């Protein structure tokens, strides 16, 4: 059901956020924050590897 809610919301006009002179669509802001979050996680999270690789 939640999928249909999300899919339905994509067919509506975009939600825009405004702070003074700065305006941005909510979807663009979400993508930008998601990209920053992925970058931070990629730097911080340990990469899985076999113990024999350390030897």
């Amino acid at each position, binding site marked *: 059901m939640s999928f249909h809610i999300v899919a339905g919301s994509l067919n509506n006009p975009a939600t825009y956020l405004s702070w003074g002179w700065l305006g941005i669509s909510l979807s663009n802001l979400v993508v930008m924050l998601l*990209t920053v979050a992925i*970058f931070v996680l*990629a*730097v911080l999270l340990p*990469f899985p*590897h076999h113990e024999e690789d350390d030897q």
Partner: protein
Amino acid sequence: MTAESVAAPAPPAAGSELTDAAAAEDGRMWTNRLRNKFFGTFPPEKLLPDRQPAYVASWIYVFGVACLAALIMLILSGLWLTLEGPSWYHTTSTGHLVNSIHFWSVQLFMIALVVHLWGKFWMAAWRGRRAMTWITGAFAFFTSIGTAFTGFLVQSNFESQWIAFEGKDGLNAVGAGAWFNVANAGQMLLLHVCLLPLVVGLLVVWHVLLVRKHGVVPPIPLKHDPADELAPGEKVQS
């Protein structure tokens, strides 16, 4: 007939001028020089290595190949959309699926590309004679933006018309409208399905070959030694 008589033709006389001249002529041929140049620069073990340096075991090194995976999905779904056309991908369930795969592949491609760019920027990936690797990556990034933009212009729906007529004023304002007319659907379609994917593809192939030639850039060391940044076999210029 014995095996020896088949496998061992009569050897040429020592110092045969004919054999030496033929070998010298072969060596001058452009096919010979090109083959030696290519396989000298890219031996098979360098083109498709079995192992990578230990520092590559980090998530930040994953996003280059994530870009390639998303690009392959983009090309395959794009070819399918090209074969079937808008009347198929706007009206059938399979068409909607392939259209969505193409759309979400470009979202993943651009996100992976930006994370790859940030990662390489902060580790100064142009070190160790990798300037051209950085430059080809940057041009591939800019061309990808143009390819994505023209893709949104050729969706053949109301959104693409809206984007075209919002974008034309901006492009006309900077003087680019005469060459890049976003209201010209035919020009945008050909740019999106022909010229720009070709340019992106060539730049990506060039970029990947350079990565294979110079190796994956190591992290910035605490104590700087230029020799540490070069691929094995390359020499430091004094």
